[in-house]
Each structure stands twice: as structure tokens, then as C-alpha cells.
């Protein structure tokens, strides 16, 4: 275990009756961009604060490069945090803010100057060096906070919802910038967020956290395409769930019979047997909605259901349809380029066909 870079080993933290983190174990590779993703109150910030040294676990250990750092004070570990509200020192200039850790380390003056100037250059803030934090915009404060935490090259950089306080445009810009900075410095980033979009676009690996435990730890694509639980599937993006029993299997495929919906064919990657209960997740963007029935296809026959359009929500890039099919209300997304290809625009109360390939459904949970 000790040859891994950063290890959480059976870590538990309680606040009174509440168990914020429940027996969590995982490890992070060196140089990785690692995200902790989950709804608010799931324990992700507590995990981060334990790594920063601001909370002490009730049980379990945390190892950094094989060294037990569980009991070290925040100022004794080479782990720096970028706080959600930046927490810049208001009485110091930007330059002094960034030089803070270097001065504490008692580096020679010249070296401090070189390092601070270099990182100011990297975040393109050189001309703001002598301003005070309250003279900066949100995005600038953010960059300074990152520079301040990076300047003495910590082993791990912790980022606690760093983009939450920024507006949408700036957030997208900062996402790219964070990615660039991570590539440049090669330091391990540990990123806490409740925003799946941020986590997806930045991370090498994501730990999805719910109620103090890790639900799934995988790369972004795997988490989206192959969610390990109903929670993960619904927390990461939209999805349609069909709960039912497997009534038949044929090769790699099976047939599921949900209550209140016709049979569905799906890819049986878990090799489940007849009689087992499953939750099938079908993402809205994988469902097609057409006025005409789909053309006959080869191979495994696709799932086709005649339905009625209930609601249409125009969302710019996509249009979202809410479609009544049997007892279900199915969400489907349609990009507008294809919308143009349709012979007739779809509107409310139209009789339509919804259809998807059996490979596009994913069975997330096998209930015994």
C-alpha cells in the first residue's frame, strides 16, 4: 500500500450523530487530476479537509508518499488548498500573498522573487502584482489563489469548489485554464465539486461520493457510460430508468420486462440470469424520436415504442422532449441539426416513435 502516492485507508469521520465519511479507502496516482464529485453534504469536503489537516479522522489513516500524515497539522504537510472563497489575505498585495509560503520557508530573497515573478507570469497577472485582493475580479482572485498554493510546489493541490463563485462564462474559461495549469506544473490535483460538468471535463479519474461512501471510482467516460449504481447514473447527467425482471436471455442480450412498459432488449454485459431484477438506464440523448417508424435494421432488433409527445423544452443546443409511452414519461434529447432533417417538425400531442439500440441501455443495478 505504501508504494502508492496518496492513500486514504479506511477513513471515517463523524460530526456528532452524523457520519460524514464512512470507512472510505482509495488511492490517487502521482500527477493525477482526481475529482471528488457528489451532492452537497455527501462528505467530499470533509475528505478534502482531512487531507488538508483541518479535520482529524476518527479512524483510518492517510498516507502521502508512504508517510502517515494523519496527525500532522496543516502547516506540517506539503499539501495546499485553494479555498472556495479564495481566502486571500486582504492586507497583503497579490505579490505578498503569493510569496507567503516562500517567506515562511525562509528562501533567499532572490529565489522568492524569481519564483513569484515566474508564477505571476504563468497566470498572466504580472501587471497586477501590487494590487490588493479587493481590487481584483473573481476570476483574477481565483488565479491568485491557485498561484499562491502552487508556488512552493506542494505534493498535492486541493481545490474546494474553486469555480462555484464564478459566473458561467468565466467558469468555462477557468476550466480550460485549470487544465493548462495542471499540465504545466505536473502536480497532483484533488478537486472537489458538485458540478458533474467540471469533474467530467477536467479529471483523469472521478470518485462519486454519496452519503460518506464512494459509489464509483473510474474515468469520466466509464462513469457516464457505465454507472455502477442507480445513484451514479442519476447524479451524472439525466437518464431514464426502467426497473424490471429479466425474462429471457439470448447470447449477449436479454429481455427485460418492466412494470407498466413493454419488454426492452438490452446488452447483458453482467451476464445476468432469467428472473433477476435490474434497473436499466437509458440516456436521453441515446433515444431517437421520429414521426415515421425507424427503418428495419440488421442484428439485434432495436427497441421501438409508439408514443405521444407531452412536453417540448427548447434548450438552445438541444430540444428536450417529454414523451408519454405506456405508463412511463421518457426524456429524449434531439440536437437541432437533426431536427432540421426531419420532414415535419414534431409538436405537442404528436403520435411518435421512440427507439434506441439495445447497446445504448445500461443495466446499473442487479437486485436479488
Amino acid at each position, binding site marked *: 500500500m505504501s508504494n502508492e502516492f496518496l492513500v486514504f485507508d479506511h477513513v471515517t469521520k463523524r460530526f456528532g450523530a452524523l457520519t460524514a465519511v464512512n470507512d472510505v479507502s482509495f488511492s490517487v496516482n502521482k500527477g493525477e487530476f482526481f475529482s471528488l464529485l457528489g451532492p452537497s453534504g455527501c462528505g467530499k469536503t470533509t475528505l478534502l479537509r482531512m487531507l488538508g*489537516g*483541518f*479535520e*482529524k479522522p476518527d479512524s483510518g489513516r492517510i498516507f502521502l508518499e508512504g508517510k502517515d500524515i494523519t*496527525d*500532522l*497539522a*496543516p*502547516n506540517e504537510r506539503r499539501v495546499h488548498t485553494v479555498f472556495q472563497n479564495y481566502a486571500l489575505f486582504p492586507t497583503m498585495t497579490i505579490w505578498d500573498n503569493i510569496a507567503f509560503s516562500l517567506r515562511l520557508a525562509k528562501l533567499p530573497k532572490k529565489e522568492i522573487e524569481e519564483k513569484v515573478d515566474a508564477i505571476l507570469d504563468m497566470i498572466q497577472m504580472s501587471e497586477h502584482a501590487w494590487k490588493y485582493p479587493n481590487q481584483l475580479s473573481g476570476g483574477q482572485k481565483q488565479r491568485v489563489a491557485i498561484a499562491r498554493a502552487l508556488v512552493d510546489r506542494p505534493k498535492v493541490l486541493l481545490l474546494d469548489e474553486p469555480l462555484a463563485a464564478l459566473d458561467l462564462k468565466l467558469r468555462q474559461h477557468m476550466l480550460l485554464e485549470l487544465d493548462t495549469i495542471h499540465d504545466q506544473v505536473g502536480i497532483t490535483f484533488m478537486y472537489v465539486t458538485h458540478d458533474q460538468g467540471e469533474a467530467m471535463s477536467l479529471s483523469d479519474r472521478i470518485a462519486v461520493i454519496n452519503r460518506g461512501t464512494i459509489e464509483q471510482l473510474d474515468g469520466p467516460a466509464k462513469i457516464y457510460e457505465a454507472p455502477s449504481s442507480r445513484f451514479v447514473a442519476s447524479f451524472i447527467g439525466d437518464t431514464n430508468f426502467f426497473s424490471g425482471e429479466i425474462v429471457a436471455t439470448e447470447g449477449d442480450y436479454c429481455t427485460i420486462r418492466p412494470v407498466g412498459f413493454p419488454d426492452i432488449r438490452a446488452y447483458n454485459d453482467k451476464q445476468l440470469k432469467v428472473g433477476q431484477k435490474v434497473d436499466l438506464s437509458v440516456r436521453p440523448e441515446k433515444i431517437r424520436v421520429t414521426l415515421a417508424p425507424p427503418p428495419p435494421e440488421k442484428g439485434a432488433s432495436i427497441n421501438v415504442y409508439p408514443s405521444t409527445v407531452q412536453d417540448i423544452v427548447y434548450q438552445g443546443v438541444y430540444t428536450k422532449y417529454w414523451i408519454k409511452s405506456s405508463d412511463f414519461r421518457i426524456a429524449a434529447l434531439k440536437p437541432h441539426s437533426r431536427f432540421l432533417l426531419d420532414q415535419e417538425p414534431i409538436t405537442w400531442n404528436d403520435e411518435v416513435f421512440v427507439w434506441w439500440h439495445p447497446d445504448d441501455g445500461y443495466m446499473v443495478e442487479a437486485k436479488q
Partner: protein
Amino acid sequence: MNSPLRTRRAEWLVTAPSFLWLALFFAVPAVIVLAFTFHGHDISGGVGEWSLSTWRELVDPDYPTIIWNTIRISVEVTIWSIVLAVPCAYAIARMNSRWRAIVAGSIMLPFWTSFVVRVFAWKTMLHPDGWLQACYNFLSLSGEHSTILDSETAVVLVSVYSFLPFAIMPIYTAAEKFDFSLLEAARDLGAKNFYAFRKIFLPGIRQGLVSAVLMVFIPAIGSYVIPQMLGGTNCVLIGNKIFMRAIQNRNIPHASALATVMAVSVLIPIGLSMWWKKRQDMRDRQRLEAQTARLFTAGEGAAK
């Protein structure tokens, strides 16, 4: 947090200076004062044996009159101060921020002159041969030309003068936070100006009113310099009596007993205001909870 500053020892270290200082020079003396009230006094100016004689003597001579006068005058001063302070605070709060700073500043400016000097200035002004007395004589058409100096009137007048800024400031602070568009909304709904003022503005600044009352009433009860310099023999309050008994007559038990009475008459309104605030907070919370509950049931109804 793991920081060493959060340990128990650090807490003691940081708490100790103020805690020990105030325990020694505030709490202990208070206990001593209370203990002295249960002693008799001896003629040499010392403290006598344990006895209840002091409390018995307190009922008898002119003390009840003095206590009653002090409370009555303090209430008068408080009422005058609040009545004047509310329109002032209202007027300042309705100004633009530039004027607000100027006027609020100029209300505090007189405080940069020594309090005693200001009281002395009043004494000079109220001199029987002075122009204020002349105005007073002119206005009191009854022909009874009593002097203002060395009377209760002078004490009330100068007390209001001295404590008025303490009444204006908390009310102004509350009024500044008050959302004046509420008054417009009330008028929009048909309320007359004064009705809106009374029903919307006054309840809106109630916290400021409570602290204003305390800010005036407490120093008024403890007043010593003003009656001393302007009240003469006609207006002796508890404060003067305490000083007289403690310094001049060396009757320490009597002074202690009077001090205890004063402390009680200050603690009662403070206790009342705290109880009232607690009750208000509880009511607000109950109202909020009831509302939330109603919202929830309404939401459920809609979902079904």
C-alpha cells in the same frame, strides 16, 4: 482543527488576561459591595459587625424619596430623548449617504469636548442673570419666576442634552437598515403617512428603540455629575447620595446598599428587554415554522 491554538491550554492562556482582570476588579468588588450592605457602620468611618441594620435604615429616612425621584427623572429623560431621537434618526436615514455621514458625524462631534466642560457651559448659560433664564422668565407668563439652575428642570434638560446622541445613534443604525420602500408600499395600499410610520417604521426599528432606551436609562439612573453641578440641593439623586455617603460621611454600608438598589433598578429593565427579545425571537421562529409547514402541505397537495 489540529492547530495548537485550539487546545484547552491555549484557551486558558488567551482568556486569562481579561478574565482575571475583570474578576479581580469587577466581580470581586461587586461581591464586596454586596457583603458590606449586611454590615452596620461604626462612627469612625469603618465597617461594623454583620447586621441587617443597614437595610432597615434604608427604608426609614429620605432614601425612598431619592430612589423614587431618580427613577422618575430617569424615565422622564428617557421619554424626552426617545421622542426627539426617533424623528432625528428617521430624517438622517432618509438622507443620501453623503449627508448622512455629515449629520451623523456632527451629532457625535460635541463628544469631543469634555463632558464636564459641557455641563459647565450649561451651568454658565443657566446662570440666574443669563439670557436663558431671561427667556424662561419671559415665557412663563404666570409670573412665577423660578430659577432654572439648581432645579429638577435643569437636571432633566441637561440630561436629555447629554444622553440624546446615545438615543439617536442606535435608532439611526436600525433605521438605516430599514427598507423605506415598505413605507411606500404601505402608502400605496392606502395607509396615511403617520399610520404607515407608526405601523411599519416603528416596529421595523424596535431593536434600535430598545437599545436606545437602555442607552439613556442606564446613565440617567447612575447620573452623578449633572445633578451635582446643576441640581443643587433641590435635586439630589441616588448617585449623589452614594458619593456623599462613601466619601463625605464615610458610611460605607449605606453607600453599598444604595449602590445595590441602583444595580437592581438597572438590571430590571435589562432583564425585561432580554425576555422581550427572546419572546419576539421565539414568536418569529414559530411563525416561520408554521409558514413552512403550511407551504409543505400545500406543495404536497399540488403534487397529488
